[in-house]
């Protein structure tokens, strides 16, 4: 059962979701033709806050011993199609002076494995947040390209991989020094969440999921992989 803290996080998330609706309405009232860059920033921050609250809620529940994943069979093809549609709908645009324009970064995908009608058991809701976070992060850091793939993991399991052609992770992040990550712009919430969700995926025979970070992305850019058992 949820406590007061969890309920409060919930309320905040609901409030943010209606804020998003009002922002759309405000945009329409002002000028439906001209996409305002300021409005766009506001929308992007709302969406970011909303996913941070979901992550916070999961971490809080884990701390309370109440986080239980809803693991179910997912058709990987359907799952990825939905994920990409959601990403496209919320994809941050860039501002060009006071006008918003679509970001020029290309996302290449390799879903060949998923297209063989493979189903896998995992918590689609939480894994989707991990992957959206990774993709949005890559969009922020990539220069031109992102590569998103899924493959069978040798020895069992599946591997989602997001690689970009940016400058790569700072050494502190690769060495898992959370304190230094805290002092930077990011609190490291997204990363802690991703590690938690990866580790909580487990099988009765004792295999666990994991998160791998490296700088062998495109041209030495960052690569994050989520391996599910």
């Amino acid at each position, binding site marked *: 059962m949820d406590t007061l803290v969890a309920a409060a996080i919930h309320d905040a*998330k609901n409030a943010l979701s209606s804020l998003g609706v009002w922002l759309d309405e405000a945009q329409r009232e002002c000028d439906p033709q001209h996409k305002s860059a300021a409005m766009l920033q506001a929308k992007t921050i709302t969406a970011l806050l909303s996913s941070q609250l979901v992550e916070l809620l999961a971490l809080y529940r884990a701390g309370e011993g109440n986080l*239980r994943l809803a*693991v179910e069979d997912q058709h990987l093809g359907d799952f990825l199609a939905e994920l990409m*549609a959601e990403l496209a709908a919320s994809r941050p645009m860039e501002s060009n002076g006071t006008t918003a324009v679509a970001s020029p970064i290309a996302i290449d995908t390799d879903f060949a494995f998923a297209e063989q009608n493979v189903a896998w*058991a995992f918590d689609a*809701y939480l894994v989707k947040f991990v992957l959206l976070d990774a993709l949005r992060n890559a969009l922020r850091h990539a220069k031109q390209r992102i590569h998103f793939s899924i493959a069978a993991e040798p020895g069992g399991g599946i591997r989602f991989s997001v690689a970009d052609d940016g400058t790569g992770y700072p050494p502190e992040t690769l060495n898992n020094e959370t304190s230094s990550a805290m002092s930077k712009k990011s609190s490291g919430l997204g990363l802690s969440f991703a590690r938690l969700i990866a580790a909580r995926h487990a099988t009765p025979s004792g295999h666990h999921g994991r998160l791998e970070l490296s700088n062998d992305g495109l041209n030495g850019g960052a690569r994050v992989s989520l391996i599910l058992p």
Partner: protein
Amino acid sequence: MQLSEKVGLLIDDIAAMRTTVRIQLASIGLEKCDQARDIKEAIEKLNLKHYDLIVCDYNLGKGADGQQFLELVRRKQLLPMTTAFLMITGETGYQQVSTAAEYSPDDYLLKPFTAETLGTRLVRIIEKKEALQPIYQHMGAKTDFTKALAACDDLLAKKTRYSLEVLRIKGDLLLGKGRASEALALYDEILKERSTPWAEVGKAQALIAYGNPDEARILLEQTLVAYPNYLAGYDALANLLVKTDKPAAQQVVEQALHVAMTTQRQRDLGSLAISNKDFSRAEEAYRYAVDRDRTGFFKSPDDYAALARSCFEQDKIPEALNAAKDMAQHLPRTPELAARQAAVECQVHIRAGDEKAAKAALAKAQAAQKSSKLDVNTMLEIAQACFAAGEPDEAKKIIQDVAEDHQENEQVINAARGVFEAAGLDEEGAEFLDNTRKNMIRLNNDAVALAKSGELDKAITMLVEAADRLPNNAQVAINAAQALLMRVQQQGVDMTQLGQAHRYITQAYRAHPTHPKLEGAVAYYRKIAPPGARQLEV
């Protein structure tokens, strides 16, 4: 597949929500869509018309939820397997919906969602239902296992995207048929590639059926560590433990209640708590069960009777009498209910030391028992009252009738054992029920021996008498039918005897549609019956 050709039913208690979703559905082409604001309205609509899909909100107000509705309509077979069921839920309901054990929706959608997402999901589940239709047509009210299994193998050979779903259905069919080693092989094959909660629990069920409960217990415990949200795992483990270790079973149900608070699970907990003489916990659980459901759809006299017992066992006499009174007030008045209430009150009065009131109540219950056919739980309640009132012979007579009639129904036999235990007669009860079982086996064996030694008519007389007395005993009815068919085969067609055989096979089917001997009897009938004889509709 076009949504415009489909007929939908939208269930939500909030009018504004119905309007919003209705507009979304129309925008994706589903114009033909009825609406219902509560379970009662939805059931009325389901009784009148066929729906291709149902969109139901999890929260239905007044203490009712979409999961209860789904369980009710699937259990009562008001909803064909081919009808797609989509649950919509807020984030708080999501945990409950995603943990549903026995009856789960085909898919669920978290609010807020766009019309586009709603459309994609609906199309996806309808396409799945249509793809699995060749299997579903042999399931439901009249399950034909052989044909359903053949349809599974057919679809598997075609290597569709639904193979995993087909394997899941096939595993359930094999388990239902007691074909444990085939089921085990099927689950092992799936688990070689990947772990998934239903296959782990399926494997454990197959291990139990295969006679390996220890390995099953370990597997279930490991499964719950990996998938702590998977309620079917708790249910399977509790069902396994209930035979050997009731306090441990109670613990498992407590854990499941932390995952999802459902009325049914509160009942399970209450029943275990009574067996474990943990009456205050039982009182709490049954109070939840009777208070929770304000719609009245899921109310059962069993809950009130158990609540009364939990109370009087703690010497809470006024509370116990109130529970009996509430039973009469909150449920439709029938002679059965009046008998149940009287039997409960008798036990409360005995506990309170009021012998006169107890005798009067018992007389009322016994009168009802003599004048009409009562259900098993009412019969056993009267037996319990007889024990309490110092009439053990009367009690045993009732229990014997029940146990003979429901010999192969483990649940009923356990309930009968519970009556002895509540009367403090654990050992005597075990022996009594064991003797009843042996008597039934002897009756069947004697009849078979008579038939083999050429005294077929004697065997028929014996079996027909028993089958008429015990309408719920499928084994006896099957043997009676078989003896009659043997006679027809030996001495030529006799339409009266063939008609009798037909009746007993139908009786067996009604009592126990999955009885392992039933298929053989049906085949025998079809072989013997000449053209023009009554067809068997099983």
